């Protein structure tokens, strides 16, 4: 190797670790700012009109008014120029002024981000603690050599994971705040305002994390050192701690994903509790096309997302410890778990039976005289706000909800595994996309494709793969740190072969389980976009839709919320119990 080339390479290598993350961050910020800046051009909606509408909801719009607004806004000529101009101002520290309120963006976005950060961090910590608590029985069993597996705590976790956040929020308000008067209903002026929103976010997330952690514990329980420690008489608590630390490597990136994702995506919970957070601010600004606010919010979220993602990678590496260096890990085949397949089949059968009974009835017959009728002879599961039979709508909505959710989850699995395997253990596209509020992605997709069911599926799939990719990335890192991976390199295995023969078989079972756990979430995500006109349509009996429509009647007709929620929980528990191999 020639001297100058070697010197250049060493120089570049020394600079590399610092430059690459910086370049990624700048590129991500510029890219998302450009995307946001291009929204009005993509959707064809005049920003002057949307801004005016945000300031004066009932104003009739004539060309003179629009011209006056446009002149005040000083709109850029095209997205590229606009983004460059914005970047130039940001570098100088000027975040601009909101087009709608005229306030400096620096007074609007950072306080909202602070609120969201408090909420998201607390929720992430509580979710992690909940996950660990739910996994303690399984951890204890693994440490004493029992058969690993879900157990009752695992079922509880899977049920929690399937609960929609806004249902927990609204039930929490109705029962704890209004009914018992223990906590405030809304606002954000002190720690007591944190409790209900954090519970609403942390209960479902904690359940999901508990299942992922449980899977990781079961996988780690098969490693040789566990047997050795047990045989050597190491106290159970020490084994449990070590096993927990080993299993956390897969979960820590998920917790951080949750943290960042909640920052921008908590709009629904923020609305229920009237929290002045970034999710609601970004959503309102995006709908009004108040681009300075959206760009600033998105840029902050992207930078935070990359930073936190990078921290997650580092945290994983730290948790793995010295074993992460070449050849140190010894992933073993996890011991066979409990036979839960029969339970899964049983629950699925129960669900199917109810759906079939529902399909025999008429879901569209409106009967306003029987509005909100309680469960009884005429309507075994009650009637909705238009007197339609809830059981019939449950059945009619099943195919659409479950089918769409499974479809989205399948796409998410394929894309997630592919992206996770490609990444080389650095924060990248997944972290950027996770930081973006999902609603913003949906708005962008709608702007390009137009409102329809396929746009909704596209929008949901565009973010559903992220947790799976991050999970894959963490697992693939473990495999790449193992001895047989090193050995395979010495006998000439190509990158593709390494992935196909060694990484994939280790990654697919846990990630497939994870994807199945997220099936109810996909169903809910589709319904969550309905306010944009995306999704299955307002008269559709789709479960997520029924849930959203029924929330307003929670106390008068709890079955409107209870039935679809029970369906989702059953679906989630059944999916979580499916055996995906070792």
């Amino acid at each position, binding site marked *: 190797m020639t001297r100058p080339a070697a010197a250049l390479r060493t120089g570049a290598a020394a600079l590399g670790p610092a430059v690459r993350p910086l370049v990624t961050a700048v590129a991500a910020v510029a890219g998302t700012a450009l995307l946001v800046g291009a929204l009005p051009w993509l959707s064809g909606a005049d920003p002057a009109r949307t801004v005016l509408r945000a*300031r004066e909801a009932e104003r009739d719009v004539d060309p003179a008014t629009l011209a006056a607004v446009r002149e005040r806004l000083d709109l850029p000529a095209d997205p590229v120029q606009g983004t460059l101009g914005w970047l130039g101002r940001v570098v100088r520290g000027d975040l601009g002024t909101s087009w709608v309120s*005229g306030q400096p963006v620096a007074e609007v976005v950072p306080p909202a981000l602070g609120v969201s950060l408090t909420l998201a961090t*607390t929720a992430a910590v509580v979710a992690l603690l909940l996950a660990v608590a739910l996994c303690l029985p399984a951890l204890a069993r693994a440490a004493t050599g029992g058969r690993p597996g879900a157990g009752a705590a695992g079922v509880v976790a899977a049920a929690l994971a399937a609960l929609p956040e806004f249902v927990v929020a609204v039930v929490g308000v109705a029962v704890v705040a209004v009914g018992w008067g223990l906590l*405030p209903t809304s606002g954000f002026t002190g720690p007591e305002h944190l409790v209900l929103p954090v519970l609403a976010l942390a209960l479902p997330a904690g359940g999901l994390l508990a299942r992922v952690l449980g899977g990781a514990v079961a996988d780690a329980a098969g490693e040789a050192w566990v047997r050795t420690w047990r045989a050597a008489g190491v106290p159970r608590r020490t084994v449990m701690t070590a096993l927990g630390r080993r299993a956390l490597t897969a979960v820590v990136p998920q917790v951080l994903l949750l943290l960042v994702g909640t920052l921008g995506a908590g709009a629904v919970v923020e609305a229920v*509790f*009237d929290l*002045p957070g970034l999710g609601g601010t970004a959503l309102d600004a995006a709908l009004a096309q108040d681009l300075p606010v959206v760009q600033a919010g998105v840029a902050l979220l992207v930078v935070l997302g990359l930073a936190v993602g990078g921290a997650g990678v580092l945290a994983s590496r730290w948790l793995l410890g010295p074993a992460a260096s070449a050849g140190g890990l010894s992933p073993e085949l996890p011991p066979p778990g409990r036979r839960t397949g029969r339970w899964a089949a049983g629950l699925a059968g129960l669900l199917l039976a109810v759906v079939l009974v529902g399909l025999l009835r008429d879901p569209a017959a409106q009967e306003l*005289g029987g509005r909100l009728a309680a469960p009884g002879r005429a309507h075994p599961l009650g009637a909705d706000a238009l007197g339609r039979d809830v059981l019939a709508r449950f059945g009619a909505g099943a195919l659409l909800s479950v089918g769409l959710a499974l479809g989205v989850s399948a796409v998410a699995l394929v894309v997630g595994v592919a992206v996770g395997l490609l990444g080389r253990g650095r924060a990248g596209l997944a972290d950027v996309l996770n930081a973006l509020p999902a609603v913003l992605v949906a708005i962008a997709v709608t702007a390009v494709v137009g409102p329809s069911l396929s746009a909704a599926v596209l929008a949901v799939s565009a973010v559903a793969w992220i947790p799976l990719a991050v999970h894959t990335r963490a697992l693939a890192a473990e495999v790449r740190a193992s001895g047989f991976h090193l050995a395979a390199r010495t006998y000439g295995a190509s990158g593709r072969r390494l992935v196909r023969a060694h990484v994939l078989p280790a990654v697919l079972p846990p990630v497939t389980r994870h994807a199945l756990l997220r099936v109810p979430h996909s169903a809910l995500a589709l319904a969550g976009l309905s306010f944009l006109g995306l999704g299955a349509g307002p008269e559709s009996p789709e479960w997520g839709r029924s849930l959203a429509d029924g929330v307003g009647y929670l106390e008068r007709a709890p079955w409107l919320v209870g039935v679809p929620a029970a369906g989702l929980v059953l679906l989630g528990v059944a999916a979580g119990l499916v055996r995906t191999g070792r």
Partner: protein
Amino acid sequence: MTRPPARVLGAVLVLPALLAGCFTASPEAAEDGGARLRLALAFPPAAALSPFSDDAVLTSRMGVTETLVGLDDAGAPVPQLAGSWSRPDDRTALLELRPGVVFQDGAPLDAAAVVGVLEAAAAASPAPRAISGVGLTARAVDADTVEVRTAAADPLLVQRLASPGLVVLSPAAYADPAAPDPVGTATGPFTITGLQGDSAATLQANDRYWGGLPALDGVDVRFTADPGARTAGLRAGELDVAVNLPIAQLPSLTGLEVLSTPLPRLVGLFLDTADGPFADPGVRAAAARAVDPGPVVDGVYEGEASRAAGFFDDATLAGAARPAPRLPAPADPAGAVVRLATYSDRPELPEAAAVLAGQLRAAGFTVEVVVAEYAALEPGLLDGSYDAVLGSRLYLGDTGDPVGYLATDLTCAGTYNLARLCDPAVDDAVAAAGALTDPAQRRERAAAVEATVLGTAAFVPVLHERSRTGHAPSVTGLATDPFERRLVTAETAVGG
């Protein structure tokens, strides 16, 4: 191995407590408790409480700002900051200001201040809706008299001055003429003493108020956009008054009272007359025949609305004769495909749309319902993307005049013509009605034009809405204003 994890765990648990500094500032505690009202309004300020936006309605309802004149239930002007007025000619109005009024910052209310207010409003870009395009100018005749002129003859000149966009603020509020600041510069019974972003505001009683000392010591206002959260706050006892409650949750308001005022807000089906299945008047007549407002009013709205016979309710027409419309002969829909759109911002509309869709289907139409938030729906509403729009419209604009609504919504040049109606007969009738100067005559003519428009079957009336303001039983003295401009007044009190 035991110490580092414990340290990490401790740090992780302490982190949220450290972030406790990230809570929003709580409203400053009142000086001495006293009788304070806790109020929740329905939307947060969009433009830092500038009167040149919907925030003017917020400050007006909070009892902070006032206009030169007000409107009574029938839409006639009543004195507020102007004690009396006269119309020397059809382009001019002379207003006598009420003596002894002082702004909340101490400056006196005089003609110069009022002229400054009106000129700033006229120069705003865009100008407030009420004076947009009329070429308003103002001049101080003497210390207490203001002359207001428009470019063309205007029978509604005085009513325009009742618009919330024309609230009278002290000259100190116009540091930025495009964004006047009402904090401490208005004339109402309450002064804004604190603003917490766009979540809350603190008001103190203005003891120099011209209408007498307010019964309350202050008001704590929350801007809560979610109707469920407002209702929950009221039920939990955290609020004394909450506006715009959803009908679905009214039965759960045990022990609370609901003020219900008829609103000049119509809900009905606008049928696209320009193209699609409803271009044929016979098909439109078939749809009008099929729609029965009864189930919507009694079922969806649970009786909290009134059936509509036309655009305007009886209170607006104030007894003017309502000629019966003559619909064309109905034609057979023959499965015509109809896209019916409505917005989800008002929670009852999607349900009403489902009921109406069912009625149309029973009559032989094929209906596809589209629901989205208004902001997402708006681009398609006016360009004919939808064959029918279930819309909710305020038909008495800022000026309380029904004819203005007809011009905006139903003429060829109208800026919000959801029905895309372009009928020269209607245009002529509206223009003729607009030229009348006597309010009673205008109303009669409006009733006649309404019959003409209903005869084209471009609009199928469904119902008129009512406002729903929930309050604790101990609260008295809330204003019941059909224009939803006044709520908290100097007489409002929270009883013992």
